[in-house]
């Protein structure tokens, strides 16, 4: 693959992606979220505004000062949502990255070495796949306890099998193709063949999967926190905000509407980007 060709392919993918209005909407939501998460500390004081209780300000309705209102401890909902977005983004990227790295290693080894290695690795992956991701994450949290790091690990592990499947499929498909034979004939070693030739071929599908994983991970962490197995108050995580908010939803519906909308927008954004990328990478699939 020459550089020129790859660039033109990249730019045509970008062009198709940019023509997809929904995907652009997804990107915009993502940038707003990312901007908030990255710059929150410049505009807000985490401890003062997102954690400290201030009983006299509790349940203030939305106003110019508190655009989403305040919660039962008088904390500004908007500030907490922005900081919650930071957690969601960390969760999304870490989970996708974890799955991507370990899934690629496992899948590539299984596919490339074949035989016994393949059999053992893929049977283990099958076992993980047979357990619904949510339940597997619950079990891992049960083992390690809650908290952000353990949640990341739980979701990361639960997502490894999908990536290993994709990579293995590509490796198996390409292993005996002519250009791999040619690379081998010209003296490339196994590792080089896998990373220089096979992985780039699987990259498109992996990126799409990664975007969708981010959406799933955000949902999963919010769910776990909601049932009390994830990030606990007072940390401003969207799921746990919903969990506390449900106590007051009858009188103050904004306590659940706002965090729920935040989760939905975040998930929607990654889904839209993922769909857009898939269509842009493979226009045949578009419909």
């Amino acid at each position, binding site marked *: 693959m020459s550089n020129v060709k790859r660039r033109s392919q990249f730019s045509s993918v970008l062009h198709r992606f940019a023509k997809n209005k*929904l995907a652009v909407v997804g990107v915009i939501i993502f940038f707003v979220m990312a901007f908030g998460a990255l710059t929150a500390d410049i505009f807000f004081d985490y401890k003062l505004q997102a954690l400290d209780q201030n009983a006299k300000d509790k349940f203030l309705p939305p106003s110019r000062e508190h655009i989403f209102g305040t919660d039962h401890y008088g904390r500004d909902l908007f500030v907490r949502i922005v900081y919650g977005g930071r957690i969601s983004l960390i969760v999304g990227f870490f989970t996708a990255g974890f799955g991507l790295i370990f899934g690629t290693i496992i899948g590539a080894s299984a596919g490339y070495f074949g035989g016994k290695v393949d059999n053992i690795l893929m*049977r*283990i992956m*099958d*076992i*993980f796949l*047979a*357990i*619904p*991701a*949510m*339940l597997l994450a*619950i*079990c*891992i*949290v*049960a*083992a*390690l*306890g809650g908290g952000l790091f353990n949640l990341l690990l739980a979701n990361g592990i639960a997502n490894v099998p999908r990536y290993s499947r994709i990579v293995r499929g590509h490796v198996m498909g390409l292993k005996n193709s002519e250009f791999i034979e040619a690379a081998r004939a010209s003296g490339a070693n196994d590792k080089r063949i896998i990373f220089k030739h096979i992985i780039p071929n699987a990259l498109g599908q992996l990126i799409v999967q990664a975007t969708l994983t981010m*959406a799933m991970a955000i*949902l999963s962490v*919010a*769910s776990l926190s*909601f*049932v*009390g*197995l994830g990030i606990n108050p007072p940390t401003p995580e969207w*799921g746990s905000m*919903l969990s506390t908010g*449900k106590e007051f*939803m*009858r009188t103050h*519906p904004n306590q*659940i*509407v706002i*965090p*729920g909308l935040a*989760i*939905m*927008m975040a*998930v*929607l954004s990654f*889904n*839209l980007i993922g769909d857009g990328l898939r269509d842009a990478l493979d226009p045949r699939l578009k*419909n």
Partner: protein
Amino acid sequence: MFKFILKRLLLMIPVIIGISFVIFAIVSLTPGDPAQLILGADADPVLLQAKREEFGLNDNFFMRYIKYITGVFRGDFGKSYRTGLPVLGELLLRLPHTTIIALGGIGLSVVVGVPLGMISAIKQYSFIDYFARTLALLLTAIPVFWLGLLMLLFFVLKLRWFPATGTGSWRNYVLPVVALAASATATQTRTTRSAMLEAIRQDYVRTARAKGISEPKIMFKHVLKNSILPVITIAGMNVGVQMGGTVVIENVFNIPGMGNMLINSVRVKDIPMIVSTIIMVAFFIGVMNLIVDIIYTFVDPRLKTQYVTVKKKKDQPLIPAQEKI
């Protein structure tokens, strides 16, 4: 066919052993002592030791696992650390609630998603197509528990159409099922739509048009029959997702199902309960997948002959004579 089913059921045994081992290992080999978690942080060391002895926590890990799994195959899932009651009894008590919600969710998602996806594909680019696609996008993004909460707020607390708690009547299950079905409906709609569109593009549809077949007949006979396979596949895959979703939905609606029990068990590392719940879920999913595979063979003649040829092989020549022109 009977042989096929039996074979598949037998193949589930190693999977279940594998799953139970993985979960057992994850929960057992990590820090955190169930006896301590149940008795509290400042419990009497003597009592703690007695509890450990009672749970068999002093044995080595492999011994404990083998003892557990052999028990499972004899129908003994052990005793719950938390309640001291036999796990199987507890599970069977809660299974119906979870089954109703999960199967209800699948059923609803198929009943709503498939026709919606069909209309969306047949009338591509129409208003209803855009509506279905937007709906599907939103439903995939909505967190199940949030949808559940909103419905609880609106239909139970404001409108009082449904009872807030309890499990006595069908009315208790309506909202959980609807909330759970939401995301499955979205995937079902999207899959049905794209499978139909894919089938519409195939050469045999052009052939059918060239034959002068009417458009409704083409859609229902040629296209639908070919797109049903991915539709069933997704319905089967949704079972797993639904089982995960029931955990949160049971929590929202306070339904004493397996999900709620799992959450309570997880808090105190109730190992037999956790592992047995997962085994139960895996078995349930396995059976649903088997049903999906059986339905496949009725829908796609190419798959049917695969199973039939196994039987016929003996009395047929290696290369069927008809294959040649």
